[in-house]
């Protein structure tokens, strides 16, 4: 089922997850460390020129105009209060500001064991990594001792069902699916009934990718959500919106409009193993405050980590934390 595997984080020497993430984030040009250390020789105070350089770096990391301004303003304010001299001090100050922005949204996903099953609805725009993330989550929950079932509620995209079934086989977890073109809400509902009947603890529902501006597709999603809710017990217990770290400022619109359609309770940031920095999460944290649950750092089952603010920022800044 699974062909040869690409080079994966799985196969690297056993490093902690953070170290792996850091190593991966620092592939290619690390967006801050290299230049900042060159830029701020020991003894040079943090002046406007350097702030502008830092601003450039933040923009390059997709932090966006607003969040970047917010961050730089905070740094400037601090530099006025206490003299910040040299690269280490500047980075430490920046590290603190960035971490503080993300701290409120680093809330891990807790499976409520009293819910049978605990239902996770996975949503997002096209191609962000929803199905792959479900495969990774299945592996994670299995490893945590939970019984897991997958629901193939993407009945639209060609071979989306086959893709999810492959992940099910790989993780040895059952997959509930109907024919291509079936009503996604019906698939989700049947899966929930089946999971309940079998005493499954975690049900992961895959949905088709949809652009957030397509009203009819957002209505379809609302229906899936509603139907799960009708079956009682507060399902879905988690609505995970999967965001691609490669995406720029459109991620803000994605969060806003998805959250309007179905209450998004957690975010996943995928593809952080590339050169994209995922800086848009600072703007997201600033604006919407939805917990960031996980990060994706590869295409294999093990390439998922819990989001953690200090670790994420440390990874972004190198070892300056």
């Amino acid at each position, binding site marked *: *089922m699974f062909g040869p595997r690409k080079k994966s984080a799985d196969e690297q020497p056993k490093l902690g997850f953070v170290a792996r993430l850091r190593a991966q984030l620092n592939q290619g040009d690390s967006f801050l460390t290299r230049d900042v250390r060159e830029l701020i020789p020991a003894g040079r105070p943090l002046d406007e020129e350097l702030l502008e350089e830092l601003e450039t770096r933040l923009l390059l990391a997709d932090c966006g105009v607003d969040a970047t301004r917010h961050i730089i303003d905070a740094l400037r304010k601090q530099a006025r209060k206490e003299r910040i001299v040299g690269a280490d001090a500047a980075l430490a100050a920046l590290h603190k500001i960035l971490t503080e922005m993300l701290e409120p949204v680093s809330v891990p996903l807790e499976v409520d064991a009293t819910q049978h099953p605990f239902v996770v609805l996975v949503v997002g725009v096209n191609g962000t990594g929803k199905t792959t993330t479900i495969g990774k989550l299945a592996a994670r929950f299995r490893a945590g001792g939970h019984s897991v079932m997958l629901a193939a509620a993407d009945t639209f995209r060609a071979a989306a069902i086959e893709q999810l079934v*492959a992940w099910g086989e790989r993780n040895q977890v059952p997959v509930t699916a109907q024919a291509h073109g079936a009503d996604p809400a019906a698939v989700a509902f049947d899966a929930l009934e089946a999971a309940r009947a079998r005493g499954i603890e975690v049900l992961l529902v895959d949905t088709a990718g949809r652009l957030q501006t397509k009203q009819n*597709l957002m209505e379809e999603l609302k229906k899936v959500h509603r139907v799960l809710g009708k079956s009682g017990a507060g399902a879905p217990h988690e609505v995970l919106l999967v965001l691609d770290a490669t995406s*720029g400022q459109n991620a803000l619109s994605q969060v806003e409009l998805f959250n309007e359609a179905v209450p998004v309770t957690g975010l996943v940031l995928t593809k952080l193993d590339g050169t994209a920095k995922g800086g848009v999460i600072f703007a997201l944290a600033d604006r919407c405050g939805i917990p960031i649950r996980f990060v994706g750092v590869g295409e294999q089952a093990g390439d998922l980590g819990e989001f953690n603010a200090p670790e994420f920022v440390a990874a972004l800044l190198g070892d300056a934390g």
Partner: protein
Amino acid sequence: MFENLTNRLSRVLDGLRGRGRLTEDDVRGALREVRMALLEADVALPVVKDFIERVRARATGAEVLQSLTPGQAVVGIVHRELVAILGAPVPFELRARPPAVVLLAGLQGAGKTTSAAKLARWIRDTQKKRVMLASTDVYRPAAIQQLEKLAAEIDVPFSAPQGAESALARAAAALEDARNHSIEVLIVDTAGRLAVDEAMMDEVAALHQRLEPAATLFVVDAMTGQDAARTARAFHERLPLTGVVLTKADGDARGGAALSVREVTGAPLLFLGVGERTGALEAFDPERLARRILGMGDIVGLVEAAQSAEIDQGAAADLAQRLKAGDGFTLADFRAQMQQMQKLGGIGALKDALPAKLAGKADLAGGDRTLRRLGGIIDSMTPAERRHPELIKASRKRRIAAGSGTTVQEVNRLLKQFAESRKMMKKLKGGGMARLMRGLGR
């Protein structure tokens, strides 16, 4: 969410109107706004910097100094410069001994497989060539099946070699298949890959070497941020890219990535993906893409979208006709369009297609409210007023405001915006009339 560049520049510059000269500060302020607008549209920062330098000289020229609306004059310059950089449309022609190979490459999830099927259909239907599809994605679960299903759906032969396990072996077998079936164009899909994954970049370079493609297309998601420039450069270093496909342009992404990729690779933009279905492929149009990047909307696309949705076909066709003639767009038409667009995809689609000024600058939730208010204003006009808004003088304005529960200022704003968009449509007449399915289902 994003404020229209015209509005921002008008705010910065129009107050200076008639002063006869702009100071260095004025220009710097205007360029700062341009820079921010481009960054918000996800144009890569180095590309933004180059761009700003290009417009700087012209922004201090007579065109701006003598303009009654220096803000709009600057927008004009920015728009023209953008159009120039995006490049004139290049016809997609495959000159090679058959089978001419088209190779698609890009990051994970960019839309390669879907675009492969779209291209197959497009080439077969518009160029009347015998086309075959092949996949070399031996990694992602069900990736090969995905393309196989799409091929079956559009009734294009699919190369399914027995026992070929590596990407390279599948490519070689596909070439063989294509020769055996006198295929004229072979479209080869590849697995998604990161530019920093050296083994995978080696693989795609080897595929290129083996296939000697007539076209090597970089597939990039319109939602991509700053990374677009970095990634495009890295791909271009390993693969001589001959063209770019911008996918997922049917949403509200501003698509600045297109500019970044174009600048970095020099490869022409060829197609836009505007939906998930295999027919949702559009030829690249620099005018429209430039307007989109600047957040200036696309009224013609909106009308055509209404047309293609078969909702009130008669009225829509009628309107499109009159729009093409460059006049006759009335407030009544505008009102009808608003109602139709609400049926079609609501405020999301509408905001995407209208200039930000008309669609309302509020957040999306507020957008629907704004629309209702605009609708209310138009509903409070007489039919004659809707046809001839120039009739609406002070007392009529007061009556309309009272009738719609709005203010005279709001009525004024609507009239001003309407006049502007009417002017804009006159300019649009003729060009850029390709159809746009934006906001209409898949």
